[in-house]
């Protein structure tokens, strides 16, 4: 099939695939390729894991000095 997507092409489309912005025709060709290619299936899965892990790097805590500074700011504004 002349129109067959290569692995090299597929890896550049992964973000658009995951974001749901690929044209339907390209999406179909990509899914056909994925159905028969273990390497690309793993690549897609690795990208999903990458996104999940990136979502875990948040550091959430407000330190005491930051809280004090912000409360001072708030009280100043409240008096205005």
């Amino acid at each position, binding site marked *: 099939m002349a129109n067959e997507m*290569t*692995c*090299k*092409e597929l*890896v*550049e489309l*992964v*973000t*658009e695939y995951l*974001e749901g*912005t690929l044209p339907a025709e390209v999406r179909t060709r990509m899914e056909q390729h994925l159905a028969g*290619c*273990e*390497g*690309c299936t*793993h*690549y897609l*899965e*690795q*990208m999903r*894991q*990458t*996104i999940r*892990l*990136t*979502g*875990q*790097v*948040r*550091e*959430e*805590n*407000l330190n005491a000095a*930051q*809280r004090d*500074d*912000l*409360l001072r*700011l*708030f*009280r100043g*504004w*409240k008096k205005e």
Partner: protein
Amino acid sequence: MDAKQDEATLLDLLRQRDEIAFTRLVEQYHPSLVRLARLFVQDESLAEELCQETWLAVLQGLHGFQERSSLKTWIFTILTNKAKTRSRRDSRTLVFSDLEPDGLETPTVDPGRFNDASSGLRADHWAVEPASWAGIPEEVVLSGETLSKVRQTIEGLPANQRTVITLRDVEELSSQEICNILGISESNQRVLLHRARARVRGALEDYLQPER
């Protein structure tokens, strides 16, 4: 109570100048806001200053806030606009024109991973296939070391890629929100996100499968 209702209640209290509501707000968003500020300014104290200015503008703007976007997006937009204003007069701030991708179509995966046309094998198919990570124990995948690898890789990215991946995958904003906040097109946003994710994936592959 759903998130939207929760936010409406919080806004009501804030407009009545309720201090506990403000404490809740900063606990929820200040760490994210500092992270955003650090994308635009390298200097830590300058970043804190930018956040303080933003909070004051938030308080002063509460009554005018139309609720067409989420509170988070509104706050992020205020900070971004302040950083933009600053970048025109302060060289320590990121220049916002740098947010556009460079237009080069560089591959995000090492071309050496694919068969060469001259190899006699299927051209542009994997020569070295990516492996499944399914067999790696979850405590390794989610370990502090793995996460610090991710953090380091993101810190080493060009500023525009770092900004987009932080907003999309760390802060989990929608692409539309990111485009509005940064003033870039959806397609540019996607190009930057794609390059950034591919770099982080590559770093994870090197880290999780060092024997490869």
